[in-house]
């Protein structure tokens, strides 16, 4: 067993862990082993400091007051937008719209683009890997508009089964697909799917919530039309996400929420919407969260996303190897078996111990995992389970965390050995 894997891939995990205050605490008399970054990541001190500094030094509403701190606050928000655009590989910061989270970003597309462009009989193509956030907005549209929803199925290893892709794409107006499954860790071939969808004239939306924290992102390389992301899974605060969209698509879309900031002019007779991105940013934005997200982007860029990806690939390989060697057939790890096709999201089934009971015993060891259906009930049905225990690895995890998980699993096995 190893306790330090920092030498092989360039990330000094011990030093990184030291930057996260929450990872210093104990849980149930054990040092915390946080393996639920798929739900939300922990935050480095630099993100907390950036938000505190915003409130202490420049708190003012943006795009309004002509005084020093209001100018500074406005600049801080627009700097964050520019940093995020760079991080996403977006051609222009004006194509980045701040939202509450990725869910709101997808709902924005369903509302503003979908209700303009999708008519009765049009087809939206989803995949069986999707999170409810990339299912329900389309089902709402289907119920309202008579839009047809089709599904790309998954195979035994939780990868997309593209055998019948050509047939499924017939008549499709929108393909909405995750870049990384929050359950099986599978990484669908996004560029291949985008090319195939564009060939039939479809628009492509990528849910990158589970991708962007872990792997270098380039929306241009994906050739996507819309990309939804969230801040809180990538070391940023909760309550802030973004939609990136192609400029010509955003320009043609009506507003989503109506209110302050999203207008050019309002009269007693009506309103003229503002240009993008302001058109989609009604009301006072979560300014401190936008500022904190910028600090998270800086933190990740400081480490280098290539280095983060390499670290997680090595750690995922170690976890797959360790858990398989130690537990054999007693442990099922849903999803692809090789690190080339997956990220560090490990959905586990251990003997017949219910995931709730498993996570309860793990918690006694300070190990935090998610138990449940992970907001992906259609996929759970395909996998033939109602729930799994999910351990999701991130940049601050190391081999000792995986070893502790394995020890805790063994203890759970003893506890529930009837």
């Amino acid at each position, binding site marked *: 067993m190893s306790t330090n894997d920092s030498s092989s891939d360039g990330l000094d995990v011990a030093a990184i862990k030291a930057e996260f205050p929450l990872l210093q605490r104990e849980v149930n008399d054990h040092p915390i082993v946080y393996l639920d970054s798929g739900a939300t990541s922990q935050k480095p001190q630099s993100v907390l400091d950036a938000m505190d500094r915003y409130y202490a030094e420049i708190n003012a509403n943006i795009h309004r007051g002509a005084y020093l701190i209001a100018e500074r606050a406005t600049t801080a928000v627009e700097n964050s937008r520019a940093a995020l655009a760079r991080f996403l590989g977006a051609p222009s910061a004006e194509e980045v719209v701040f939202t509450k989270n990725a869910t709101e970003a997808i709902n924005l597309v369903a509302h503003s683009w979908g209700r303009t462009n999708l008519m009765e009989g049009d087809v939206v193509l989803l995949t069986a890997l999707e999170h409810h956030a990339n299912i329900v907005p389309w089902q709402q549209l289907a119920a309202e508009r008579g839009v047809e929803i089709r599904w790309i199925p998954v195979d035994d290893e939780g990868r997309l089964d593209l055998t019948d892709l050509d047939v499924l794409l017939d008549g499709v107006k929108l393909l909405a697909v995750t870049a990384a499954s929050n359950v099986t860790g599978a990484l669908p071939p996004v560029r291949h799917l985008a090319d195939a969808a564009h060939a039939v004239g479809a628009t492509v939306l990528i849910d990158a919530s589970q991708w962007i924290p872990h792997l270098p992102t380039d929306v241009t390389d994906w050739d996507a039309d819309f990309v939804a992301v969230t801040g809180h899974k990538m070391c940023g605060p909760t309550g802030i996400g973004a939609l990136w969209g192609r400029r010509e698509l955003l320009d043609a879309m009506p507003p989503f929420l109506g209110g302050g900031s999203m207008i050019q002019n309002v009269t007693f007779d009506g309103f003229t919407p503002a240009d993008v991105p302001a058109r989609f940013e009604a009301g006072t934005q979560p300014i401190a969260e936008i500022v904190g997200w910028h600090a998270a982007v800086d933190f990740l860029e400081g480490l280098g996303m290539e280095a983060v990806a390499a670290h997680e690939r090595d750690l995922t390989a170690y976890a797959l190897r360790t858990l398989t060697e130690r537990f054999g057939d007693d442990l099922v790890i849903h999803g692809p078996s090789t690190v080339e096709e997956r990220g560090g999201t490990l959905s586990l089934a251990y003997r017949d111990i*219910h*995931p*709730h009971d498993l996570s309860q015993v793990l918690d006694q060891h300070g190990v935090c995992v998610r138990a449940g259906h992970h907001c992906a009930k259609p996929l759970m049905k395909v996998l033939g389970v*109602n729930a799994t225990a999910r351990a999701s690895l991130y940049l601050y995890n190391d081999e000792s965390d995986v070893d502790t998980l394995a020890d805790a699993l063994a203890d759970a096995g003893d506890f529930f050995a009837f």
Partner: protein
Amino acid sequence: MAGLEDLYREIILDHYRSPRNRGELEVPPATMAEGFNPLCGDEIRVYLQVDDEVISNVRIGGQGCSISQSSASMMSTAVVGKSIDEARDVLRQFKEMMSIHEHGLDGEDAAPGDPAADQPGASGLGDLEALRGVVKFPVRIKCATLGWNTLDQALTDSSSE
């Protein structure tokens, strides 16, 4: 610190290992209600046979974690043979046991005038007292109450027929 032994009492594990009254009843004459825990996907079916206002038979179907399964199993033994009114009384007491501490976690006192709040054995719930420890694990309260909420629905259904 609330330890595992507070949650997984021996009688709970016993009901999990050997659930009582598993199975189904023919509907009708029995009634059946289904309950879901949207957090984890657990599901429970409660079959209820009521004759002359008395619960003559109960069967439990579905699947879930040790707490939801054992709680439903213990519930089945607690209410079989009881009148509907008596069963509702047990139901009410059980849900009170599960809810008092939910408020307590927010810093409020237990409901005034309820002597059973912190006195094991005083509630008349018998073996069901073993589930009191669940309130120290708030996420699991929904597991423990799943079968009972489903019973509630089944009782309502059976009395409306």
